[in-house]
């Protein structure tokens, strides 16, 4: 790893680390004032538990050589206890390992939204470990493990056999988290008290700020170093962020009559979700449009979901699922061959194979993630109920589960 690349990835690492508290504040601020701290604990503990799992076997399962060359799962023991990280072999091992822990951690942290205000904290900690092993690890392997012809190492099937284009984890991270959040919400059932207004939108704003800034590190570091690709995806990410803000408030303006701050922030995130898989494949104008349509799609999906009364409290499926799918499909049609990825969208003369390759990847990701997460949560729930008691829920999880309250003098 060149020093300049190291310099950028070190900085990007710190930026991505900000996404955890950022997500905690975004989600916490959107809930009522009695379940803020619980949400923060869920999000931050995701990182802690993931780190442990990763050091043990997770990193190998994602980036290790495919077991049996099948492209299904990496060798769990390839990096066991990270002993290979201690010597400098020039590959940047420890830094990338740290980085991949954040990738996995943020995925499961997003899933927490499906459990907002009603899951036992102990059950959540167990869920995180199991989910990283059974859901994230295979999906991560499929998408992040590149085969290497020279050394003969075989990686994940989606990336290498199916030939999926996914720049920074639109499938393994965002669509995955979206589907899983939905599944968890379904197993848990709806909140008793019903939906409540966000209790602190400025807190949500701080969260959005940290999340979006971290995203620049997330996408930029996926370029692998301080290179032209990193420059390019920084530009497209910024443009998608801008387009996303405009897209969401445009829909709001015409549907509800008002542009809102929550909408603007939501749009920023949806725009970034949309660009994540295709940041290297669209042109600058395309990036603005990816942001705009992804955020519009998310805005539409939120309303649609509400009508079906699924209590995905924080809309992870709409924002990370639907916006991600929209971004991917946009690129299938409008990818710009002049962009670094060099792919022509169907509209610009590209082959239709792009469509079915992306289609299969999206579908498999969604189905696998949803079904497996549902199975995990359902099974855990059979063994010991994972939902808190009605009384605890009424009191609010901050107080009933964690014996603390977010604000002095405001006990709600």
């Amino acid at each position, binding site marked *: 790893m060149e020093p300049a690349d190291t310099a950028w990835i070190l900085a990007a690492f710190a930026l991505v680390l900000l996404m955890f508290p950022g997500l905690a504040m975004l989600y916490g601020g959107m809930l009522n004032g009695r379940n803020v701290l619980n949400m923060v604990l869920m999000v931050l503990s995701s990182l802690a538990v993931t780190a442990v799992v990763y050091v043990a076997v997770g990193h190998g399962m994602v980036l290790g050589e495919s077991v049996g060359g099948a492209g299904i799962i990496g060798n769990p023991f390839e990096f066991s206890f990270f002993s290979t990280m201690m010597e400098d072999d020039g590959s940047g091992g420890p830094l990338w390992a740290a980085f991949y822990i954040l990738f996995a951690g943020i995925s499961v942290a997003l899933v927490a939204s499906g459990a907002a205000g009603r899951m036992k904290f102990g059950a959540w900690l167990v869920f995180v470990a199991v989910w990283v092993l059974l859901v994230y690890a295979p999906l991560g392997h499929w998408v992040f493990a590149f085969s290497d012809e020279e050394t003969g190492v075989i990686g994940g099937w989606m990336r290498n056999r199916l030939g999926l284009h996914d720049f920074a984890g639109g499938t393994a991270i965002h669509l995955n988290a979206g589907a899983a959040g939905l599944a968890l919400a379904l197993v848990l059932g709806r909140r008793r008290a019903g939906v409540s207004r966000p209790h602190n939108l400025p807190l949500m704003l701080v969260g959005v700020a940290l999340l979006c800034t971290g995203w620049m590190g997330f996408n930029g570091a996926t370029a692998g170093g301080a290179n032209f690709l990193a420059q390019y995806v920084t530009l497209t990410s910024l443009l998608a962020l801008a387009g996303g803000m405009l897209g969401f408030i445009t829909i709001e303006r015409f549907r509800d009559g008002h542009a809102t701050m929550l909408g603007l922030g939501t749009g920023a995130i949806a725009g970034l979700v949309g660009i994540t898989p295709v940041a290297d494949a669209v042109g600058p104008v395309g990036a603005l449009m990816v942001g705009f349509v992804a955020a519009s799609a998310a805005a539409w999906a939120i309303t649609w979901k509400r009508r079906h009364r699924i209590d995905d409290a924080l809309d992870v499926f709409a924002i990370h699922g639907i916006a991600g799918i929209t971004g991917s499909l946009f690129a299938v049609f409008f990818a710009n061959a002049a962009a670094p990825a060099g792919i022509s969208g169907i509209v610009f003369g590209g082959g239709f194979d792009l469509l079915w390759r992306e289609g299969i990847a999206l579908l498999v990701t969604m189905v696998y993630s949803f079904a497996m997460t549902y199975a995990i949560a359902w099974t855990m729930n059979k063994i010991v109920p994972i939902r808190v008691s009605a009384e605890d829920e009424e009191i609010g999880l901050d*107080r009933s589960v964690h*014996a*603390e*309250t977010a604000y002095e003098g405001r*006990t*709600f």
Partner: protein
Amino acid sequence: MKLITAVIKPIRVETVSKELEKAGFSGLSVSEIQGRGAQAGRTEYYRGQAFAVEFRTKMCIELLVDENDVDKAIDVIVAAARTGDDGEIGDGKVWVTPVERVVRVRTGELDEAAI
């Protein structure tokens, strides 16, 4: 005229307010208070230090009513505010105080007309 004051559980404010409206009491005022009583307090922990939080959050509803409506209003409130099957400790209290005069700011109307 009378002023009915009801201290109830926060979770019941919406129900009480809706039921009162159905019963024809369209106006009322609500505020948050901290109450102590038979219901036990709780303990919170901050860095391992226990803080006894004796007070529980309650909502206080105030309702000006005509003399004749007092019984009806109380019945509605008590029915709507009760939680659990036969009421739970901490469900709260309702009390009535005499009011000598009421004025509506907008019109200057007095008493019954002002409620």
